[in-house]
């Protein structure tokens, strides 16, 4: 096997977990930029925020469902209830795999909280000014 193939296989093994780690925060970032960008546009033009708030509400629900699904997948990858290994601190491929699941799970929680926080102003503030 060439080096390239070896590294490609290593990446393929963990591709899913790497995507999981990235996607939680990426959903947070996309949601954030969409909220901010849409609000800037609408407040700079007609200032009609009712549809905007509804849109942000729907977008938030979609984002939260997406993150929750990622979190669930990551939780299963971490597999802590099965083997009770909280630390995943040995140099084996199983521990590496579960560690990446754990990290992705925790990031999903942070992203979930982040998205919830960012959507609160749209729930509470009903005007551009």
């Amino acid at each position, binding site marked *: 096997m060439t080096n390239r193939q070896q590294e490609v296989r290593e990446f393929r093994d963990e591709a899913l977990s790497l995507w999981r780690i990235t996607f939680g*925060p990426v959903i947070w970032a996309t949601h*954030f930029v969409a909220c901010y960008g849409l609000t800037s546009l609408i407040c700079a033009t007609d200032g009609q925020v009712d549809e905007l708030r509804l849109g942000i509400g729907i977008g938030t629900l979609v984002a939260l469902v997406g993150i929750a699904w990622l979190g669930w997948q990551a939780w299963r990858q971490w597999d802590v209830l099965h083997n009770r290994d909280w630390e995943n601190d040995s*140099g084996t491929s199983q521990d590496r795999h579960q560690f990446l699941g*754990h990290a992705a799970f925790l*990031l999903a929680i942070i992203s979930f909280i*982040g998205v919830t926080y*960012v959507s609160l102003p749209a729930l509470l503030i009903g005007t*551009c000014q």
Partner: protein
Amino acid sequence: MNEREHLPVATGPYPPTEEMLAVPVSKEEQERGKAELRAAWKTPEGWRYFSAVNNTEVGVWYCLTAFAFMLIAGLLALAIRVQLAFPDNTFLDADRFNQFFTMHGSAMMFLFAVPMFEAISILLLPAFCGARDMPFPRLSAFGYWCFLIGGCFVLGSLIFDAGPKAGWFMYPPLATKEEGIGPDVWLLGLSFIEVASIAAAVELIVGSLKCRPPGMRVNIMPLYAWYVMVVGGMILFAFPPLIAGDFLFELERSFDWPFFDPTRGGDPVLWQHLFWIFGHPEVYIVFLPSIAIAAMIVPTVAQRPIVGYSWIVLSAVGTGFLSFGLWVHHMFTTGLPQLSLGFFSAASEAVVIPTGIQLFAFVATLMVGRVKMSLPMLWIAGALAIFVAGGLTGVMLAIVPFNWQVHDTYFIVAHLHYTLFGGMVFPVIAGVYYFYPFFRKKLLSETLGRWAFWLIFTGFNVTFLPMHLTGLRGMPRRIFTYPESAGWGTLNMISTVGAFVIAAGFAVFVYDLLRSKKNQPQIPRNPWGAGTLEFSHDVPDEAWGVRSIPHVTSRYPLWEQDKIVERMDAGRYYLPDAPDHQRETIVTSVIDAKPVYVQRVTGPAWITLWAAGFTGGAFIFPTFHMYAPAIVCGAFAIVCVLYWLWTATARPPKDQMRDVGLGLRLPTYASGPDSVGWWAVWITMLGDATAYASLVFGFFFYWTARPDFPPEGAAHPTGLWVACAAAALFLTWALTVTAREVNRRGGVALARGALLVAMAAAAGGAASLAASVTALDPTTHVYPAIMWALMVWVVVHVGAGVIMLGYCLAGSLFGKLTSLYDADLQNVTLFWHFLVLEALVTATVLGLVPGWLA
């Protein structure tokens, strides 16, 4: 065409078994290995010492220089405090006061906080990773010399009374209209240093991804390496918007292109966006690596593995992400819609969660361990106390109505100093005490250390705690004096006294650091009883990094892997010798750290100094509007870099394979994603694309923010020329990819032809793009100006792309680049992947978007 050849691959047993590791190494064998390594890694002596590029030398110079700049910035702060001690004081006039506070902030940020992180990481990261050196030592050295030249230039402007005086954030229009060369010094000098910072960030990311010892999978990496990756990534996405902003700003200052001038369609708020998209993550760029130092000290002090390793990794990554969503909290009073402010207020509160998790993990580790209040731990404890106080005022400031009340008052000054002193200065000093025995093989004084701590800790609180009140009582920031009737005199006097107590503490610390320690006995090897690899170092000092590169299977190998140090010392592990007297280190795979190849590491050289000097000229001459010498310097800088690459990197090796020990044989050359160079290009181009995206953001920002964008009846770029440019640059990219593929299959002549045509096509593309905007006058309105700016950006990059293609062509003609050894061509193709994207987006913005907007 020939059948495709492959580079050889690793052969032999891996991972090593316990039996293999238990085989003793003969005394003669050990001595031979040591002698060879000593010869390969010898530090140059006499005046040649300054041609050294090894991380242990460059890292120490870098740390000392950043520390010296900090002391100078600290003296400026003292002068500021003296001026503010009494009402109506005349110690400094307004002009000098403005220069001093601007330079205090700028120097602390750009000449101390960020470079200090990179300096410490260059010094320590290879040791954490059991690597011999960083992957690109000459790049570290180049970055260091750039930093030294740029730093002296920027700080030196104060001596000539020519320093910038519009504040470290350089808000236009104050800064764009400022007389003299101050803002140019700031913009060009600091852009130059930012380039060096990005170079170091690239090196550090590649170092922690690819230069870990065999077996050190991602789940057992030292936390410091995780933080380096996160912070390196943040630098890549945070600094480029500022570089893009600097680019626009300097075009306005030098050529009157009105990006920030509202009378001609510009908008000063764009600068604030670009500045704070950099400026807020910057706070975390400064904070995270210092917390990483704490993450290394705390387990040692507690004598047990860190609690919640995965939680800390998650917090570092999470903080890195969330910190990008906070920039507008510096802009709460610029009149943005309330709803928008709400998003940023909420995101600012959310970032507390991952930040808090890290602190709780440290506290938990200390609670379950057997803690001894050693000197490094004392500083960490002080850091936690101060940082938590700063974090609490941070939560207050994230609330919009409170923020409006204290905006631009001394409350902000108090808050930011609490976060930065607690989050950066204290942990870094803790790190100095903790790692001093590693890099100097001596210990600092326990007594002096405690004196320094209590002086700085007390002085700090005496200075900055009252400032919360001064701010709440209405004292604005950045005023050079105030009337007695304002009633701020007593509080300011207390702060000034405190500032001198801090200074006394630093004096003790500096004395301890620099005093002669000749009479101190030799220290034990691992004085703190740490568990990570850096404390397997040799005492007395050896320049080879690690005697042999170990196979690592746990997070704290010195605690958990029996006999590891003994075996490293005996040369039982990998690369225990250097038969050719060449500097080498092992490059491993990204996730599981399996050995991939042996990287030749470059040795001492003067060329890096020359390159840095000429690069400095290219940035410094334009400050004085001397463009001809700047261009000459730029050209010489390019020649120096090309010479350095040509003579030292990616040359076909003498032997294809190298016996690295324990029966394992590794190749000595790699190209494409295996190689460290490919990763470096990839990471650099991510940063470059971010800067470019910031310019495009500017275009759309003007479109949303300004009703007159584009202005009625404006001239647009010529569609035909834009189309020609897009076609030609796309062709260049296609030819480059073709050249890479046919070269790999042995079609060397065809590849050379493709490269030659690609160079011509690229030149044609650049010329077409320039021609498309020549009818527009960039000084009349921001619309033509941003079109020109996009054109200039792409044309300059195409220039670099043409040089790279020429370099590959020359490599092919002179035998440096063959069908087997094609790393250069792989890397250049990667560069063109990014460039063709930037070119096509530019063509869309120049050629199509105006039609859509109409």
